[in-house]
Every structure is written in structure tokens, then in C-alpha cells.
């Protein structure tokens, strides 16, 4: 099997690459192991000035002793050092690598100059590729370069940086970059941009779910697809439209790569703690179905010997958070579909979607739901309720499943999510659900079936 381990690097990234990235690739379980049984080449795309620096460096010479190496110069002019210019330049380099892999039939082992590889990470990728997996995804940790690089020195022997995965993750948890700190569930300062969410598990371990994992193995992608902004934006979605082609590395005991970044790199703006409503709002605004599927894969970052029972508890909790945020998309879809003629309903949904406690009083089922919506005046009377009363009242107007009116009439009764069971029948030629007449049945708000009622489903003694 043919592999091309390729990356682009220029400017300040060259020093990082020479200091930690290339030495970590020289660990016995990485390129040296791969070279014994596979056709592997190492490629760096860079500027002419940086090419000379790289070529002269002892670590690069050591690399050339292990695998065939190539440095190619980027033809595009260096117009600016701004962040967006760097991203554009990187994308052009990645397109070139993809074209070369397509022409040669090689699988791209994706690398960045600020990656530090655990001692057997490449071997894992090679095994998966040889097993026929076309794409392996992972979401690495970002650490502070200024403190992480000195911390790694204990694992350096000559030009080689050979660090076991648990030690790497353990060190990483002591040198988290702010970019990752502000995405921990429960941390007091968080970023509203929930690219990924982490849950602390042990003193040096945590669980991660990510909307934007990166591909580390790219083999036989659909042709003609190129990254638009970066490979973790939408490239994999388009290159592997069948999500079953994509595998996730879900345990750092198998695969571990971390990033080192300057402390001030990409400052986030901050807000309050992560919460279900925030996560749900982020998903609604920014996350397509494919990215939601990525988020369903949890990755164990193991830096210590935390017991399995603890891992399971956190995984169950994290899954519940993810599921709840996902199921509240129903309300987002209904909210988005409302016009201006239902202000009380819009306000009620707005409250529900913003209150961090709402989901504790309203458990949404898996799958579709049907809404039984009373008139505006009835809703307006409830708007000032505390969420502990409002959310259960909403639950009494939700039915599990997509329930056409005819089916409800045929059943003769309905049980709401709130556990209230009432009769469904007819009076004076009009369908009735409990004490309320159906004014307009089988309508749609977004993807949700709605039956509009004259009043609440449950009698006024509810309060």
C-alpha cells in the first residue's frame, strides 16, 4: 500500500515542525514502523526560503534516513501574513496534495506542522487503511506551545520524540490551550462557539465530542472534491458522501495526536457556562446533519488509569446532553416556521429554548412529535409561569410520534408526554381532544405535525 505523509509549513510553523512534529514522526512506532512494510513518502510544501532551512536541519536529515523525503516549493506569492491569507495558502497546498494522491493512488496521511504524534499513532492509521478503511477522523487537543514543548523534552532522545499515548495526553491536560479550556462542560468560562464539547473524566482524562473532527487518513476520496476553507470544514462530507466510509478513532490508547499553538493564537470571545440551550442553538444555527453525526462519536482521551465505570458514567451523561440538544431541534424548527401571527406561541417557544432548566422538566422522545396547540390567549395566560410549571404544561400539549387526527380519533384517546391521558372524539361535528375543539388539524410547522385547538388539552384545574 502506498502512503504519502504530507503537510505544508512556512514562517513560524517551520520551527514548530522541526522541534516537535518531525521528531514525533521518527518514533519507532511511526514512520520507521510504516517504512518496513509499506511504500511511504514524506512531503513538505513550503516557501523557497523555508525549504533551505528545513533541508539543512539535522532532524530532516534523520528523517531522510528513514523514508524518502521531498520538499516542494509553493508557487503562490506570499501576499500577507493575515489569518485568512494563511488559510487560503494552506488550502491551495492541500489541493495539490490531493491531486498528487489521486494521480499516484497513494493514501494521504494528513499532517500539520504543529502536530505531535503519539508513538504508535501512524501504525494505527496504516492498519486501518490496510483493513480497507478510507477515512479516519479524530479531534485532537490544542495545547500551549510555550509550555508544552519544554514538557515534551523528557521524551526526547536525540532527534526522536518518542512518547507513549497516555503520557502525551497526560501532558496535554496540564497544558491545555484556552481554545479547549473554554469548551469543557461545567467550566465557568466558556465560548459560545461549541466546535466541540469536552467532559472531564479523571485527573488527566476527558471525553470529547466534536462537530469538526479532522481527517487523518484520506484514501480514495471521491474525485474532484477540494477543501473550501479547511479540511475540517466540509471536505470529508463531500469526499465521502456515504458516512459509513468514515471511521472515528475513539480512544487515544489507539491513536493520539495533539497540536501545539502559541498562547495567543485565535483568541475566543467568552461567555457563560456551556448549557443545553446554548448547544441546541449552536446546532440549529451552524451544524448540518453530517456534522451532527460526527458529534455522535465520543472520543476517550486517556491520560491516566481512570476506571471503566467512571468512563461509562460520563459517556452516558455526555450522550444525554447531546441527545437532549438534538431533540430540542424540534422546537427550533417550529420556532423558525412561525410567522408573526402567533406572538404568544413564539414567545413561549423562545422561553423554552433559552431556559437552561427547561429540559429538566420536559423530556423529548426520540423521533417525531405532534403538537396540540391552543389559542394565543390560552398561551398568553401561561407566559409568566416559572419554567418548572411552563415546561410540564408544554409537555401536556405534546404527543409522541407523528399522529394524524384521523389516527387519534380512531384510537379514541391520547396520552401526552406529560402523562395526561384524555379522550379524543367528536362534538357537534367537530373533533375534540379533551375539552378543546380542534380548529385546524394536520397542519405543519416546519417538519412537525400540529393540531390547532381552541383551548388547553388539560382542564383549568391543572394549575
Amino acid at each position: 500500500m502506498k502512503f504519502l505523509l504530507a503537510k505544508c509549513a512556512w514562517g513560524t510553523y517551520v520551527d514548530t515542525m522541526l522541534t516537535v512534529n518531525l521528531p514525533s514522526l521518527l518514533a519507532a512506532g511511526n514512520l520507521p514502523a510504516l517504512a518496513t512494510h509499506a511504500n511511504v513518502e514524506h512531503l513538505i510544501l513550503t516557501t523557497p526560503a523555508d525549504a533551505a532551512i528545513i533541508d539543512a536541519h539535522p532532524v530532516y536529515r534523520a528523517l531522510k534516513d528513514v523514508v524518502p523525503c521531498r520538499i516542494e516549493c509553493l508557487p503562490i506569492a506570499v501576499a500577507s501574513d493575515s489569518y485568512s491569507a494563511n488559510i487560503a495558502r494552506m488550502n491551495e497546498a492541500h489541493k495539490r496534495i490531493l491531486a498528487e494522491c489521486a494521480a499516484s493512488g497513494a493514501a494521504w496521511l494528513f499532517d500539520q506542522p504543529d502536530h505531535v504524534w503519539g508513538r504508535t499513532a501512524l501504525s494505527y492509521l496504516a492498519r486501518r487503511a490496510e483493513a480497507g478503511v478510507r477515512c479516519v477522523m479524530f479531534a485532537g487537543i490544542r495545547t500551549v506551545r510555550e509550555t508544552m514543548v519544554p514538557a515534551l523534552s523528557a521524551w526526547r532522545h536525540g532527534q526522536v520524540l518518542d512518547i507513549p499515548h497516555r503520557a502525551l495526553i497526560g501532558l496535554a491536560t496540564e497544558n491545555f490551550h484556552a481554545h479547549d479550556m473554554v469548551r469543557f462542560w461545567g467550566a465557568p468560562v466558556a465560548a459560545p462557539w461549541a466546535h466541540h464539547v469536552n467532559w472531564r473524566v479523571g485527573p488527566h482524562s476527558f471525553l470529547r465530542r466534536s462537530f469538526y473532527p479532522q481527517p487523518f487518513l484520506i484514501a480514495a476520496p471521491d474525485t474532484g472534491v477540494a477543501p473550501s476553507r479547511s479540511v475540517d470544514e466540509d471536505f470529508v462530507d463531500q469526499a465521502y458522501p456515504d458516512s459509513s466510509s468514515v471511521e472515528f478513532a475513539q480512544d487515544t490508547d489507539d491513536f493520539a495526536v495533539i497540536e501545539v499553538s502559541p498562547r495567543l493564537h485565535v483568541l475566543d470571545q467568552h461567555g457563560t457556562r456551556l448549557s443545553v440551550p446554548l448547544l441546541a442553538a449552536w446546532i440549529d444555527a451552524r451544524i448540518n446533519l453530517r456534522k451532527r453525526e460526527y458529534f455522535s462519536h465520543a472520543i476517550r482521551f486517556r491520560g491516566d488509569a481512570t476506571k471503566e465505570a467512571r468512563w461509562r458514567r460520563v459517556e452516558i451523561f455526555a450522550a444525554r446532553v447531546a441527545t437532549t440538544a438534538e431533540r430540542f431541534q424540534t422546537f427550533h424548527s417550529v420556532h423558525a416556521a412561525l410567522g408573526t401571527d402567533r406572538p404568544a406561541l413564539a414567545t413561549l417557544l423562545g422561553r423554552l429554548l433559552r431556559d437552561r432548566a427547561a429540559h429538566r422538566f420536559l423530556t423529548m422522545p426520540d423521533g417525531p412529535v405532534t403538537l396540540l396547540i391552543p389559542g394565543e390567549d390560552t398561551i398568553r395566560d401561561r407566559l409568566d409561569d416559572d419554567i418548572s410549571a411552563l415546561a410540564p404544561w408544554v409537555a401536556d400539549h405534546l404527543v409522541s410520534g407523528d399522529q394524524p387526527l384521523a389516527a387519534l380519533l380512531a384510537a379514541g384517546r391520547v396520552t401526552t408526554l406529560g402523562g395526561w391521558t384524555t379522550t379524543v372524539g367528536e362534538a357537534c361535528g367537530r373533533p375534540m381532544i379533551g375539552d378543546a375543539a380542534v380548529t385546524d388539524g394536520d397542519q405543519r410547522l416546519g417538519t412537525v405535525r400540529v393540531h390547532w385547538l381552541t383551548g388547553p388539552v388539560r382542564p383549568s384545574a391543572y394549575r
Partner: protein
Amino acid sequence: MERSTLQELTALHAVLDNGCLDDAERLFDSLGPANAGRGQAALALANGWLRAGQTARATPYCRILRTAPDTAATATTQLAQLHLQWGRHDDARRLIGPHPATLAQAALMLLATMEDDEAAWAMAQAAFERDWAGHPLAAALTGPPPDTAERRDGDIAHFWWAAARLRRCSGGGANTHDCLRRAIDAAPWRLDWYLELAGALFADMAPHLFGRHWLSLPVTFAGSWRWLLLTCRAHMLMGPNTDAALACCRTAQTLDPSRWQAFQAEAQIMSDFACLDHVDKSFRQFWNGKAKPPADPAGRDAPHARHRAARASRRAITLAPTAANWNDLGATLFAGGAMEAATDAFGQALVLDPRQRHAAINVAVTLLELGQFDALRHHMAHTEFLAPLPKSLQPMLRRADATDPDERWPDIWRMKVDYQEWLRRTVFSQSWWRELGEGR
């Protein structure tokens, strides 16, 4: 122009920008009568005295312009541009006369005419287009600037300066910036044009362009505190290159310790570090829970950045106790996690100026972050907000005492939920660099 002459002119412009006219005259005298840049140096001094409002002190230097070898041939154009820079349109028109001799003079005459009345402007423009139609540079006044600098016209720099001013009058934008940039390329010692370019970019709300333009300009003016601070701003925008930005503002502080802008710049830069320190400390408290926190050999718990930022901001307040500076102290303190102190600073800003639009909102954000909802509701009810509220505050517009349900639950509740409603940040006034672009 020779490098040594360029350096001399650059240093002179820097001294003049610092307002040290007597020092500038001594520097001029040291150049000697045979200096290759004597005319340009005289022009700089004339400019400096006119800016100081002392026309009589400018007059001898205007005379030198006409005799110095480097400006004799173009003295009319140089002086006309100088008059226009200070709004002396009649003097400029008198100098050029009814028949401009060069394209640059024609452009300056057009500029001199344009503020009088539409009829005069139309006649001047028609004459310009008739007389200079076909000249490659003429198109630069109306279309995009040509790619190659036309050097047949000896006072090309002034042509581009006039073109920039004319473009600004008809809407500004990228063509104005390009024309000013060409003027600077032709006369790279003209610090005043660099500052005019900065002002144009800020006025056109193009901070990203400012960073790119500024750092690629041909000459540095390390002796000018204004240039240093604009360079500091450019480094903050590009990268950011924090080390270079800090070096610039600290040099500016040393050059002129009375410039509050230099201290506020340092405060704003250091507040990013303070913010990171705050995130770091609060995260490690969360991570370690009840366990004793590990030793801190990296010194990450030391409030170094927060103290430095606050100290610099307080120095700015000492030098200029404005509402904007008090607001910026509050933003600095907020970034470092000192919420109560931030509230006090924002409050002081509002005492000085109840219409300080940043502080009015920043107080509310800080009260929201502190969970002081009663105080927040009182503030929201009794404050006139002169800038749009951030999304985080819009739900607080709810008035619990209103009888009309639509007033109790205003529009935001009916609107699509935005994840940015969970954002908590305060904003700096940015006055320290905006005023530089305005020449203050």
C-alpha cells in the same frame, strides 16, 4: 533619492509630528544649504508652522522652496498642495493661475475649485478633461488608478495626493487608499500623508485593510509617537504580532510620556493576556475541583498581566481622565475577571459622561455576568442606550411591571434563538487609535 537624505527627511517629519518645531528647526539648520533634501525639509517646516497656526514662521521656508535644488522646479505645485492641505483654496488658485503647467497642478486646481460652487467645479472639471484628456493619469481622477506610476510628470506625488482628495469627495473607498498609497510611494518621507491614509482607512471602516497597508509602507518613523501607535495598531490587527505591538507602544511611552494613547494601547494588548490568565486560573480551579491545585511553576496564577494592564490603563486616566478611558479601564478589568472593579470603572465613566455609549452597555453586561439581576433591571430601565444592545442583553428588556404582555415579553423572545446571546464581553472605546487617524 539617496537613503541618507530619506533618513534625514524621515527624522525631520517625525520630530515635527511630535510638535517639536524648535527641534525641527535645529535639525533643518544642521542639514546645511547644500543638502539634497533641503527643499523638502523646508516644505516640512512650512507645513509644521502652518499647522501650528503661525503663518509668519512658515514664510521663510516657503521662500526656500523656490530656491532649493530639489524643489525649485516644482515649488508651485508643492506650495499649492500645502495651501490646499490647510484649506487655503484662494492661495492655491492664485499660485497655479489660470493655466496649470502640469497635470499635478491641474488636479490641484480642480481640488481648489471644487468647494466653491457647483458651476465653478463643473467648469474646472470640463477644462481638466479637455486639456488633459488622453493623459494616462487623468483617468486616475475618475476611474481606477493605473497600474504603472507615470513619472513623466515631475510632481507625481502631489498629483496622487490631489487624486486621493478628489476621490474622497466623491465617496472615498479603495481608490482613495490606492491614490494615497501612490502619493506615499512617490514621497515616502511625507509622514502627514501616512497619517492621512490611516484616517481614510479608519473612516472607511476598513481596519483589516489598515493593517495590511500600514505594515507594507516604505519607511518607518521610529521617532514619531503617532506613527509608533498606528504601527502598534497594525500589529494588533495582523497576526496579531503582540511582541511587536507592545514594543511600539512602549517606545511611544518613552518618547513622550504624556501621551495617554500609548498607555491605553498597552492596556488593551495586555488585557488579552489578562483574559487568558483568567481563563487559565478559573479552568484549573474547575479541573482540580476540591483537590489541592498543583504547584504553579509556570507562574500562570500570577496576576501579572492583569496588574500591568490595569496599571497602564490607570496611567492613561491620570493623563486624560475621560469617560472613554474609564470605560477602557473597565474593559481591561473585565477581561482579567475583576468584575466588581470593572463595574465601578464603567460607573465612573457614566458619571463623567452619562452618554458614554460603550460604558452604558458594558455595565449591563457586567451586572449580567455577576448575576445582579435587580441592579441590571434598574440599569436597563433608567439608561439611554446609544448603541445597539448585544444579544445577551435583549432578553433583559423585559419589563415585569408592564400590563401589556407584548411589553413584558419584547421582540427578542419571539425571535430565533442566537447562540451569541450567551456571549459575555465588554468593548473598548478604541479611542486611542481612532483619534490618531483624526490627527489628534
